[in-house]
């Protein structure tokens, strides 16, 4: 007998498991104090995979799945809800989590205290991410945002020196300010509407000045957390200064949580407000982020910095769903979130390898002696770059092609040229990155390459992971149809009539 049919339809246990498997693993890792980290990670990955498969099957059948925590239901209780968008983020989290969990033991080898702290922090972050993808309650989201903030900042300063502490502090101040703006918005909404549930709020919303102000506050708070221009100042030092596996998590997942909530808030919670003016405002902000981030990425001299500024630019694409407002745009944005996440994880892990082997990540030619060792990393970097540029046959191509189509259909020439221009800029900074890495070091040997400790060897798992992720980024280009079918369940748009 099917287990799910015994339970009330509105309380699917899988959603709870998605949050609590990583959370229990985090508790366990505190108790074990760094021992048995690998087995904990394996069990967690398997458990989350199972729960995710179960929930995906339900969503494919019923378009959305809910769990009424405590059995109460909104507006009194808190609900969890999974639809296609949640699933996309849940799967992205799982894939990134798999890669990061695989490289972490090798990456933190020999640093006992760092790896002792990494596991509980990462597993709690995972629980917080999954909780965010599933949450529909505005105040509950305040708590998950704080969980994300504290976990992300703690991970970003892990094992770093004073520069990392400084970057972490800046990140923390921006993020706490963002949380407070969100909380103030929640307070205004609760005072005016008496509910905290996103969906209950969205039904029959009467819009007063307080609701507008709340929406603006919450959006600004999320923009600070997502490092959207002009609140991006904290991101480059924090993402570039963190250990490589952490940078991958922060860039692929944590900043996306804020953009994800921006979409949830406007398209689910406040659909009545999401009109022309708002759409244009977000479109302009997105465009600014795309151009500004790309131009700054072109000017950087360090690999990790280029990747970090590229994150700022690529997040801008996600806001294009506001002005384009069509099913094609929604598909494009969703697919962009996925392929960018995988590609960014690959790039940061590759950059971490370069840093580990060469001893620095300045844009200089890789010394001949190290090329063989860094071969797979560079290959992964190339594949990920191809996807980020939007060249076929990658996942990035699908995303950008869908966005372009949407821009042709509903946007107009401005948005089309913006997407083309931004794509060209991305190609420019990524070609520059690859060309500088692959050129022959000027002056033959030497060139100030720190040499003595440059001979650090690279464990196999670290070496191949960027390549594997790069391959996934390419493969995303071939499986788009079935994935999109699942991830479009419950989308706020309908397919335009052919």
């Amino acid at each position, binding site marked *: 007998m099917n287990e799910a049919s015994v*339970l009330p339809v509105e309380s699917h246990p899988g959603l709870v498991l998605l949050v*609590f498997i990583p959370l229990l693993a985090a508790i366990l890792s505190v*108790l074990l104090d760094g021992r048995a980290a690998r087995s904990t990670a394996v069990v967690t990955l398997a458990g989350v995979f199972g729960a995710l498969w179960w929930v995906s099957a339900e969503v494919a059948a019923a378009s959305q799945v809910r769990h009424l925590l405590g059995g109460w239901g909104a*507006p009194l209780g808190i609900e969890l809800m999974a639809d296609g968008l949640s699933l996309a983020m849940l799967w992205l989290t799982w894939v990134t989590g798999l890669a990061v969990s695989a490289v972490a033991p090798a990456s933190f080898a020999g640093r006992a205290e760092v790896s002792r702290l990494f596991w509980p922090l990462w597993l709690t972050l995972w629980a917080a991410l999954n909780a965010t993808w599933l949450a529909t309650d505005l105040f*509950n989201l305040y708590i998950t945002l704080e*969980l994300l903030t504290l976990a992300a900042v703690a991970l970003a*300063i892990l094992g*770093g020196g004073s520069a990392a502490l400084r970057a972490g502090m800046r990140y923390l101040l921006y993020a706490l300010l963002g949380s407070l703006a969100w909380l103030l918005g929640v307070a205004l909404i609760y005072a005016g*509407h008496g509910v905290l549930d996103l969906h209950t709020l969205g039904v029959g919303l009467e819009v007063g*000045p307080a609701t507008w102000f709340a929406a603006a506050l919450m959006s600004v708070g999320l923009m600070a957390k997502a490092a959207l221009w002009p609140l991006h100042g904290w991101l480059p030092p924090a993402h570039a200064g963190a250990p490589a596996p952490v940078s991958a998590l922060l860039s692929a997942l944590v900043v996306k949580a804020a953009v994800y909530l921006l979409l949830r808030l406007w398209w689910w919670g406040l659909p009545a407000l999401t009109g022309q003016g708002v759409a244009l405002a977000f479109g302009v902000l997105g465009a600014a982020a795309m151009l500004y981030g790309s131009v700054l990425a072109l000017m950087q001299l360090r690999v990790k910095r280029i990747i970090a500024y590229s994150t700022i630019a690529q997040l801008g694409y996600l806001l294009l769903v506001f002005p384009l407002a069509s099913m094609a745009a929604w598909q494009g944005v969703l697919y962009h979130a996925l392929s960018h996440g995988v590609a960014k994880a690959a790039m940061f892990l590759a950059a971490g390898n370069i840093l580990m082997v060469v001893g620095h990540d300045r844009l200089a030619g890789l010394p001949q002696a190290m090329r063989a060792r860094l071969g797979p990393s560079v290959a992964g970097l190339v594949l990920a770059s191809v996807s980020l540029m939007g060249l076929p046959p990658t996942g990035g191509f699908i995303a950008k092609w869908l966005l372009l189509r949407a821009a042709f259909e509903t946007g107009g020439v401005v948005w089309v040229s913006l997407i083309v221009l931004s794509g060209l800029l991305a190609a420019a900074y990524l070609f520059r990155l690859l060309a500088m890495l692959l050129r022959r070091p000027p002056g033959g040997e030497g060139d100030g390459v720190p040499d003595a400790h440059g001979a650090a060897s690279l464990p196999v798992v670290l070496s191949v992971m960027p390549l594997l992720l790069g391959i996934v980024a390419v493969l995303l280009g071939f499986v788009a149809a079935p994935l999109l079918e699942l991830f479009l369940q419950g989308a706020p748009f309908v397919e335009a009539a052919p």
Partner: protein
Amino acid sequence: MGELVGWVFDGLLALSLVLLAARVVASARLFESIVLFIVFGLLMAIAWARLAAPHLALAEAAIGAGITGALLLSTFREIVTDQPPSAEAPKVLVYRLRVLMALLAGGVFAVLGWALLSIEVPAGPAAGEQARALVARTGVDDAVTAVLLDFRAYDTLLEMGVLLLAVLGARAAVAAQPPASGDDLWIGGEGDTPMVGALVGLLSPLIIIVAGYLLWVGAYGPGGAFQAGAVLAALGVLLRLTGRLVPLPRAGAFQRGVLVMGLAVFSLAGLLTMATGRAFLQYPEGLAYPMILVIEVALTLSIALPLVLLFSGSAGIAAGRSQHSP
């Protein structure tokens, strides 16, 4: 007459809150700002009492003013420097920037105030009404405790995660470097005075009794795990300050257990209810009160220990006398 007195009192309270907040920001001396912030917290506690929120008055006095104040003061003690106020940017520029910032803050106040006063009581189904209507079905009599541990228990559970992350994060800040030795918060730098022993001996049992009482009374009225945990944490701060607790570079298994106990018990309780075919944390009839009580006991300890560790600035603590020589 009574109403008038209430008005005058509220007016003075409100005025003091605003003036104190302004002084906290404007004061030239950091120490003064911190002390005034603590006073601000105490006045907030009175404001909570005036607004019929006794739970919050207790929590604010213990956590908002007490523990936060202790944390701020111990940080101040460590980072206080004799650096002269740095010769910042040219004075005129600073002044213009300040004016701009003040205008911005004034704008925030104006828009916020206007938006707030435009809010009307919602007409639709509100969470609050339902909460009050359904308290009887939860196994506790107090509406706030019912919201915290039943209606919105998931919030409270995740909040324990935030507290745990603060402890882990504070350790992450140290992970880059060896723990500083010799820093100590112990106030008895020249040996104990007889007063310290007497105070600790008198207060410790009393504080434990008060914490137990607060925990138990939470089911019926103002009190509960958070207030009890904060009071216990205050005891920890006192013991740490008087050298009865000393910092350890690592937490032992027992302390790690206490650290995650609240989160673990809460989560397992929820998964247990789910295993019996109910929703997560949907307490079975009749078992609600005992389950909530067990959860609250675990929460109390798991709130107290992280706060003490954060104050102590160490990964662990142990009983003992500080090694300072007189």
